[in-house]
């Protein structure tokens, strides 16, 4: 199952130090995201991905070897982003 972002412009996501702020143009809400959620959103902006591929991409970026609990962590973040209407299943 692939995930994609519901943002329609890169201008809606800004990195601020280790955090991210994102503007949801549909609801008019602004959200503060932690580093993991921000980076997941950033990757999904360019290509819809499933959790496994996201783990590989993030693992390379964070220089970590893929582990099963990381996959669960990514899933939890995706669910949270979905509850904010920032991502959806592609």
């Amino acid at each position: 199952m692939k995930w994609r972002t519901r943002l329609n412009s890169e201008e809606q996501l800004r990195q601020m130090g280790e955090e991210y702020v994102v503007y949801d143009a549909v609801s008019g809400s602004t959200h503060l995201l932690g580093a993991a959620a921000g980076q997941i959103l950033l990757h999904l902006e360019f290509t819809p991905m499933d959790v496994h591929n996201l783990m590989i991409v993030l693992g390379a970026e964070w220089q970590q070897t893929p582990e099963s609990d990381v996959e669960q962590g990514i899933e939890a973040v995706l669910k949270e982003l979905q509850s904010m209407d920032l991502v959806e299943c592609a």
Partner: protein
Amino acid sequence: MKLSDLSLPELNRQLRQGFYFRTGAFVVNVKSAIPAVANGLSLMYADYPLADRAFADFHVTLTKPHHWRRYFRPQVFFRFEGTSPFSPLPLSQAFPMLEWGMNWCISSNAHSYLMIHAAVLEKNGRAAILAAPPGSGKSTLCAALMLRGWRLLSDELTLVRLTDGRIEPVPRPVSLKNASIAVIRDFDPLAIFSPVVRDTVKGTVAHLKPSSESVQRAVETATAAWIIFPQYVKESATVAVPVSAGRAMMRTADNSFNYGLLGQQGFAAMAALVSRCNCIDFRYSALNEAVQYFDHLPVPDPA
């Protein structure tokens, strides 16, 4: 020509027809026959430039009612462009009502700016934005900083230009409430205050005259360098704690008048503003110490 060039009778005469003056980027036309309005303007706005009668951004009128209330518990009405946005107040509150009304005119209409409910002052070309909810000691700190040489850009309305992110000054009298009036009188016995007005919705209020320099330099915009979230805590030491940019952005957006209205443009302007500032939670009780801290605020690294 500035307001102090007019005698009080001449000011009263002009006020009856419509008195035009400039407060930073805005020209206001005030029409009123209420003596407290003329007295308040004469005292608080002495250094302000008069404006051409050809144009005003805001046309406001303060009047007494025509019916029996004129004599029994007299009131004052504020009108803007022919509408009455507020309930009438006791006549003794005419000058505060003019101040609150002018703030409302700007915060309801000046959407070419990102407007933050915050004081803002400048020194050496860098502006400090003091964003905090009412009752946190923002105006008291703002008054103290102005009285120690910081240039007042505003004590209520931080106007961020959407075109270039610079702060537009709109220096006006600093609104002080309750205990902070005596605190600032003690802090600077030469400070000039409007008459104290009691029993308003905000408690006892008085306005502090802006420094002449703040008024004379009201056309000079400034670059924001700090966003400070001040909080007066009785007997607290002076404590400054950095706030992450993301959290500062969320808090500043919460303190904005029109962030939501501006949509993505507001988001972009707020993100750009916060990114170039050092953001700090600031707790204080001793004003002299607080001013000293501000005078040595670390300059942000260029982005």
